């Protein structure tokens, strides 16, 4: 699992570096602000001074303050939940795993988690985004019931777009019907 995680991290890092160096791509790398609504202060509005919120992003990717998340002997190093075809419920065998992560989130309220739901390749790409979301929402709901906080967890879907295993057979597909739990710094 450590290997998989590290591979994912270095791939993400590589992708960032390569994208940044991709000169033929006419993309605007500016960070988006499409859904914000900022109005200029009108005349007569009092100027207020608010405390500055400090954001520290100096930590390098791959470095974690929580070694137990990477320790293969810790259940917290396990991050994947697999599903039956067309099923979305977290099977009993994964319950201890979800409980362990819920406990970790409870004990570290500032830590955030991204849950990515995935599907196999059959069917519509967009409907599969919906199916993957149903999977990640299910894991999120269970973590919330076990005491994690809403603002700690974002559940999203990668649909069929990021298969772990290639191939048009059940062996590959069963690897791809999956939810992955990632902590801050891992995505």
């Amino acid at each position, binding site marked *: 699992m450590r290997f998989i995680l590290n591979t994912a991290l270095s791939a993400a890092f590589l992708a960032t570096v390569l994208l940044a160096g991709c000169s033929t791509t006419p993309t605007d790398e500016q960070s988006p602000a*499409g859904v914000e609504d900022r109005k200029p202060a009108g005349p007569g509005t009092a100027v207020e001074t608010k405390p500055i919120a400090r954001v520290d992003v100096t930590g390098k990717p791959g470095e974690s303050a929580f070694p137990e998340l990477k320790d293969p002997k810790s259940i917290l190093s396990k991050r994947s939940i697999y599903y039956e075809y067309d099923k979305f419920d977290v099977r009993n065998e994964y319950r201890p795993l979800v409980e362990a992560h819920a406990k970790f989130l409870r004990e570290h309220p500032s830590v955030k988690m991204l849950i*990515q739901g995935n599907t196999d390749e059959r069917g519509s790409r*967009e409907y599969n985004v919906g199916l993957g979301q149903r999977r990640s929402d299910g894991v999120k709901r269970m973590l919330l019931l076990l005491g994690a906080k809403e603002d700690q967890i974002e559940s*999203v879907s990668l649909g069929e777009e990021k298969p772990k295993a290639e191939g*048009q057979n059940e062996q590959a597909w069963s690897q791809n019907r999956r939810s992955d739990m990632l902590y801050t710094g891992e995505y």
Partner: protein
Amino acid sequence: MPRLLTGLLIPLLAATLCLVAPLAHAQLSIEITGAGGQRIPIAIVPFAGEGALAPGIASIIRADLERSGLFRGLEIPPLSPAPTEATNVSYPEWRSRLADALVQGSVAARPDGRFEVRFRLFDVVKQTPLGGVAYTMSKEQARTTAHRIADYVYEKLTGEKGVFSTRIAYVVKRGNRYELQIADSDGASPETALASFEPIISPAWSPDGRRLAYVSFENKKPVVYVHSLTDGKRQVAANFKGSNSAPAWSPDGARLAVSLSREGGSQIFLVNADGSGVRRLTSSAAIDTEPRFSPDGQSIYFTSDRGGSPQIYRMPAGGGEPQRVTFEGSYNVSPRLSPDGRTLAYITRNAAGKFQVALLDLANRQVQIITDSDRDESPSFAPNGRMIVLATVIGGRGVLSAVSADGRVKQRLSVTAGDVREPAWGPFTE
């Protein structure tokens, strides 16, 4: 003799194509299978002086018209002197060559370095000229000009607008690299609008053809962008908590219907194209996704599994009680309205597990399966409604296929060493 010649020519041609292939690797190549029954025989004479333009003119016009399945280009022996648009037409001579229609033209260099291309179209049966146009263009615009002439000929002879000047957007995946590309409708002149190491899906053309909305996974989750094609500027249209997906333009180009999970599940919302003014349209415990506006802007068709299996529903564009539209089969997804709003194309899964393109006549409820492939996705109508481009898998590779709305003419568009998917046929542009 002709058969022998063909037998010799085809391997020779194939060998030539193989030699050329590495240079043209980025281009979609086209293969036509099947053809319409009644094809109009047309003679397109090589334009006098067209040798000055690398891709030529007449051969592009002929290939365009033949791809429609409605025309058959005639072989023409070398004519000397080469006729121009001004040359008198001997109708009996062209009739004896079995031509119903004739195109003659010329290419002339201008003192400013540009070119003038002129042509005239003739109805050989009625022995009458049907009109012509003169274009001034740069050397690089030879293909564009040829497509325009093909559009003119197509419209004069069929009464419908041609789509040869329109463009198709699609995604190419090579290894772990994804490119959103835009090519001419014949696959030529592909340009890359976006390159990424994360997936790109669901490109959708704005009605004016200047922008593409799409879903990119570059932020480790699906986010909807609007991308201006001329300057490459991108704007986030939907990046809410959770997944943001399945963009569809309103016919006025002002708004997008999208599927968002920000309030749990996957539900359909409207947002302005700049990402402001989000409003929820559906309210179900199901997956509601793949919205599409009807061409009149009154309705939104979408995929929902609220009835237990994914089916297509329709609701008023402002929201309201949805009505189920598809009933046959347990998996009907990806609704796309024809430009006249009378036909719904979608993907249906049959009992054998094959995913194919179905057409539903919204007036008489008749369903017709128009493909014989088995992993079809993402159908997209040409703006004249005559053809549908779709993604499918052949020989383990993602290819695009175009099929006439009556299912008779099929073309395959593929790239070497890569998967092509997620086609979106662009609108008419001036």
